[in-house]
């Protein structure tokens, strides 16, 4: 008599008891629910102590306070994108780029661009670069009694920093770019494909809304990785929700991810048209009012940080920057993480940021 083997036996649990650990796990998760909800509600982001040292219109400049002795006189100004909030650079005490620099002995300032309202929709990139950034850097230089400051720009904030550096090179000691796009010719990047003028009418959007609405921006960013952002993330959360540390980090990231802000209409229109659609910056054809942006004018030391798994700004969009500048002291680091992972991943904080602090320390004026 022959016995027939079940072809799916390998996939089947050997006995119904096999499900019970899952059952136990489910009960553990249910038990953790109140704690999870409390953590989600009370998570504190961007909590490093700071004071506002400069403000203009909606913009504020935060100066971070620290008990750690300063080692360098050259201050460091952090500039985040106009999309989302800048506290991603100081998300949690153990995942804070700000804290990394403070621990290394730097004097750290952060630009909070504020939330543009309908009346700010006229603000262009020129306003942000030649007025706000210029005033901020000049104010920080005056406060710290130096002629040159170091500037770190993240994502779109990096692009703005590069534009600033080309227009006012004498005011910068060092320039660090983090996942900052300067070239939009790489059509592997989904955002570039989506903003193709044939399908994406930025004029119609800005004319209708005034500012670029946050729900459209958030939707677009989420759709870049739908499987990861709408399914895997929550499955991962369910699996690890009994870990208090994980829940805290998840809550902090969700808080930041959902804390979207609009982008000033004219800035968005100009960024999409001149950068995404015409790719003017890397060709040296971009103009901000009467100023022409020539990246060759940048002569200060450059550190270009890129994330190899970045789905928002591909490495190809940033890598070219080092070839476009006039600096002789330039370095690029490609780190294995994602766009946001550069600032919040544990590995980046362990391996990347100490390197960045060393690089900057070697090029800053010591006390």
């Amino acid at each position, binding site marked *: 008599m022959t016995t027939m083997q079940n072809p799916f036996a390998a996939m089947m649990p050997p*006995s*119904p*008891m096999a499900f019970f650990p899952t059952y136990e796990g489910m009960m553990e998760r*249910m038990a953790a629910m109140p704690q999870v909800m409390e953590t989600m509600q009370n998570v504190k982001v961007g909590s490093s102590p700071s004071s506002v040292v400069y403000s203009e219109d909606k913009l504020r400049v935060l100066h971070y306070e620290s008990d750690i002795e300063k080692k360098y006189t050259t201050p460091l100004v952090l500039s985040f994108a106009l999309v989302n909030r800048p506290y991603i650079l100081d998300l949690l005490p153990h995942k804070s780029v700000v804290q990394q620099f403070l621990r290394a002995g730097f004097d750290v300032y952060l630009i909070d661009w504020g939330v543009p309202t309908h009346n700010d929709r006229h603000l262009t990139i020129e306003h942000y670069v030649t007025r706000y950034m210029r005033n901020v850097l000049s104010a920080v230089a005056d406060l710290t009694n130096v002629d040159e400051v170091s500037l770190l720009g993240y994502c779109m904030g990096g692009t703005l920093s590069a534009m600033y550096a080309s227009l006012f090179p004498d005011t910068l000691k060092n320039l660090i770019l983090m996942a900052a796009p300067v070239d939009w010719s790489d059509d592997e990047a989904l955002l570039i*494909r989506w903003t193709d003028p*044939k399908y*994406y009418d930025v004029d119609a959007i800005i004319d*209708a809304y005034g500012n670029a609405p946050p729900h459209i921006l958030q939707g677009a960013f989420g759709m870049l990785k739908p499987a990861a952002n709408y*399914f895997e993330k929550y499955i991962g959360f369910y699996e690890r929700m009994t870990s208090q540390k994980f829940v805290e980090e998840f809550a902090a990231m969700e808080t930041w991810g959902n804390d979207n802000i609009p982008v000033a209409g004219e800035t968005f229109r100009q960024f999409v048209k001149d950068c995404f659609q015409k790719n003017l910056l890397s060709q040296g054809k971009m103009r901000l009012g009467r100023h022409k942006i020539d990246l060759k004018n940048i002569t200060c030391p450059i550190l270009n940080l890129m994330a190899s798994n970045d789905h928002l700004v591909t490495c190809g969009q940033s890598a070219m920057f080092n070839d476009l500048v006039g600096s002789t002291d330039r370095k690029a680091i490609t780190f294995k993480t994602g766009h946001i992972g550069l600032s919040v991943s544990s590995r980046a904080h362990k391996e990347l940021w100490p390197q960045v602090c060393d690089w900057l320390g070697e090029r800053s004026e010591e006390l």
Partner: protein
Amino acid sequence: MSAAANSNNPAEQWMQYWTDAMKQAGMTPPQMPGATTSGEPAAAFTDQAKQMQRTFFDAMARYCDDYMRSEEFLKQMKQSMDASLAFKKMMDDFLVKAQSNMQSPVRGDVEDLAHMLRGIEERIFDRLDRLEEKVAAVEEQQQAEGSSARTSSSARSTRTSSASRASKKK
């Protein structure tokens, strides 16, 4: 009894009750006939399930990525965007008309005012920028003249002192 259970705060009491109840339920699963208590087969099953899940999501991610790069997706995106913008415009027009009929100021009136103020501000900033450039140019010129005057005067004094030294030598 824990401190939370003794607390008068109903929220804390509820939380403690919930946590204890769920923990106990998780620790004492109902016994089924023929069930083994070994966790190993279950672990293997979980690994297999995870692998299947990973494969499924990888395939889904690839499919989504391909689809979102396709002409069809881009056309659909444009269509839905056009439709939502047209709807928004229709609503905005309706609200403007309604407010105008009620003789109340509409957003456009306030925006016109803001636009005018912004124009004034821009002109002032432009003037200031130009003035700043002019002042910088004048300062540079003055510095250049000052340094050349110093150079020529120091050159003169060098010539005089060397001439006097030469006459002394003689």
